[in-house]
């Protein structure tokens, strides 16, 4: 990929529209840049003539705190939004890595799936409206500022996860929910062979943790002592009463699974949780690639182990995070130096997809990333997706080649 020569940062929707339309007419290819925290997702763009950054589209347009909704420009960092919401007792479960850099628009465009979604719903379910600039410069709005709206197609949700290939998000309107008053983090080392049982116990809890992970590796990046087969980390959220009961239930459930000792952390629990989310995309430069597999809760642990074994059989170091509640398995494979890594990664990628076709790349600066199956197996409806792309961006102006199937 050639380095983009030019970069613009329009400060208004109108200026964004003008810049996009000009490129579309002149045949220039546009790379869209938010905070670039998820730049490790997707294929590298096949050509870039101009980078359009949303950095200058920064700020809250409306904060209707009594309605539990807000509207913000797409380049607004998530941390700014979360700080504003926390000040009024509200939150949105963005749960994206590096929220001080990650932008609202970039996080939505990447369709980021956070670990608390089983509990609070997907981030996309919070989007109640949007303004988007399409490839020909059209400024189109969808939805509004109300929490229930079935006025036409839910275009905002179609744009979420579209990786900027249908248009450039300029604004998003979201609903918020009340912030759970307390948070508590559970940490325990996992003795050998307790993984499956621990996972089953966690998933069956009456008061479900807001997030629960089985973690193997990621020393220093994630809290907790490493056990023989890693560690378990769970976030509880709610009232004091809920936390008290949930703590008892979680302790005894893990005890039944053979996890003897647990420690709890009240101060800094959410920060420790955020470090797990950061680790999803923690890259070792050119000597690591991180995969994510969306699985089912009752299959995720097994899938995580399988990914780990495939890494081992290719003599790559494997580190895993299994999101027990949603059924996601994250694997980072790495080697001591980029040369050794480069020699193994393509064969590993092939073996991984032979076993688990849906695994996607979410992080890593490997120079041959274009050779990996970064989106996993093509979805059944790929041809329909291509048709949508052709109808929205016929000249392939926006982020060409980055998305599924080279869209």
């Amino acid at each position, binding site marked *: 990929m050639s380095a983009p020569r030019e970069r613009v940062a329009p400060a208004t929707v109108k200026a964004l529209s003008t810049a996009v339309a000009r490129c579309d007419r002149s045949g220039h290819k546009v790379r869209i840049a938010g905070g670039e925290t998820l730049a490790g997702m997707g294929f590298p763009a096949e050509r870039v003539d101009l980078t359009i950054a949303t950095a200058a589209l920064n700020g809250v347009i409306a904060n209707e705190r009594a309605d539990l909704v807000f509207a913000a420009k797409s380049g607004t960092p998530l941390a700014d939004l979360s700080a504003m919401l926390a000040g009024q007792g509200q939150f949105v479960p963005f749960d994206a890595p590096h929220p001080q850099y990650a932008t609202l628009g970039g996080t939505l465009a990447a369709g980021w799936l956070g670990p608390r979604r089983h509990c609070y719903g997907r981030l996309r379910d919070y989007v109640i409206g949007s303004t*988007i600039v399409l490839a020909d410069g059209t400024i*189109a709005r969808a939805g509004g500022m109300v929490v229930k709206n079935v006025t036409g*197609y839910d275009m905002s949700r179609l744009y979420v996860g579209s990786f900027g290939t249908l248009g450039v998000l300029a604004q998003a309107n979201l609903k918020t929910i009340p912030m759970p008053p307390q948070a508590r983090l559970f940490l325990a080392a996992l003795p050998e062979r307790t993984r499956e049982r621990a996972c089953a116990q966690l998933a069956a809890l009456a008061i479900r943790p807001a997030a629960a992970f089985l973690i193997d590796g990621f020393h220093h990046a994630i809290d907790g002592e490493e056990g023989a087969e890693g560690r378990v980390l769970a976030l509880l959220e709610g009232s004091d009463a809920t936390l008290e009961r949930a703590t008892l239930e979680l302790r005894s459930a893990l005890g039944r699974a053979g996890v003897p000792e647990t420690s709890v952390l009240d101060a800094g629990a959410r920060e420790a949780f955020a470090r797990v989310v950061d680790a999803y995309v923690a890259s070792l430069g050119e000597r690591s690639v991180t995969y994510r597999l969306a699985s089912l809760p009752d299959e995720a642990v097994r899938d995580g182990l399988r990914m780990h074994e495939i890494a081992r059989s290719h003599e790559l170091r494997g580190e895993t995070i299994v999101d027990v509640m949603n059924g996601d398995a994250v694997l980072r494979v790495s080697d001591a130096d980029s040369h050794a890594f480069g020699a193994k990664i393509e064969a590993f990628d092939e073996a991984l997809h032979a076993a688990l076709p849906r695994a996607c790349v979410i992080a890593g600066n490997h120079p041959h990333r274009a050779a990996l199956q970064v989106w996993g197996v093509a979805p059944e409806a790929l041809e329909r997706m291509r048709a949508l792309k052709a109808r929205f961006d016929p000249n392939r102006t926006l982020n060409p080649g980055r998305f*599924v199937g080279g869209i």
Partner: protein
Amino acid sequence: MTLHERLIEALGRDAVKIAPEDLAVYAFDAYTESGTPSAVVLPASTRDVSAIVKIARDCGEPIVARGAGTGLCGGAVPMTGGIVLSFARMNRVLALDERNRRAHVQPGLINLDLSRHAAPSGLFYAPDPSSQKISTIGGNIATNAGGPHCLSYGTTGHHVLSLEVVDASGEVFATSVDDVGYDLTAALVGSEGTLGIVTAAWVRLTALPESVRVAVAAFDDVESASAAVSAIVAAGILPTALEMMDAVITKVVEAAFHAGYPADAAAVLLVENAGVDEDVRAAEAVIQSIAIKHGARSWRSAADAGEREALWAGRKGAAGATGRIAPNYYTQDVCVPRSKLPIALRAVGAAALANGITVGNVFHAGDGNLHPLLMYDKRDRRQVAAVVETGNAILQSAIDLGGTISGEHGIGWEKRDAMTRVYSTEDLAAMGRVRDVFDPARALNPEKIFPSGARCPEVVPP
């Protein structure tokens, strides 16, 4: 072969209805206007649906998919004729995956039947439109149906995991929210049968809460009750459901159901909290104090499940109970920012008064989703005109308050021309691009959602 012969050949005589009296039954949904279909078909499988769509395409017939026909905006009415495809025979739960909390269902499955089916596993299907005893999951998906409990659980779209769809050419395809690529599931939910015909779905199930408490607060005026709702939400409390009924509705509900509402109240709030018992009790106490601060003259918590269910039965049967006041009612559906509820209700009252129409309000107050019921007698043309006028004024007042023209019933035929009041030509053209991809010939539920006459402008690639 004629259309009828081809359909009978493909599906069998028993699955094709062509007698005038049968066609007349499918000419309506719960909206007032009708359109007679050229045939009604009752497929038993996805393959049947696919065959029907292919025959329809060959014969140039549009297709209108239909669940239970409870839609209020004419979405299931074949306004320009064509084939009505009823899912009455595809109404089963195909699989219940207890551990992963999901179910695989056919579109004709009745909403409440799914919750009943899942109850022994400690699970339920959260979206609960008031029509849930008869409306179908497929119809709910088409309209992205809401319901009282959407306040905390979200609308239908938040509970759909994957779809099996027959497209406008009869091909079958699958979408899943876990798929990489564009979220076609999100595009299809709420598309009112204009992008494809859903033939199966995996939907999310939710754990039954360990504790549920329902309470009723009575107020001496609508204003105070709606101010209380705004204050509860502004205080950062989202109960599981927060419903309101005014005097007109409370009176008929009590007369019809003896549900336990104070029949002489000017407005009542129905408040449900669910979850961990301690939290439920704490939330109820806070809500009670806010209600009393805003002038609630009484507060009563349901003592047991029987009382809770009676209150809910009254609430969900409210629209039907208005038969005691007038032979017909028209339900408007608008959504406003929740802090604007008091103003919105005042506007509703003013519009009804100006047109001499009796209005009853029963609605999802916590979401700002209003349902004014306008009472009338359809034999009286002046009353019909007054209802149309009132409905329009309510739409406009919602738009003026920053709201929208449908919170949960959909656009269908009824509101398609009002779409231009909330969306620009460009906004609608973006939706039109999606339609172009899925249904270029406009054969699926034509003349719905999009404004009549003025077609969406073609976007010509440069």
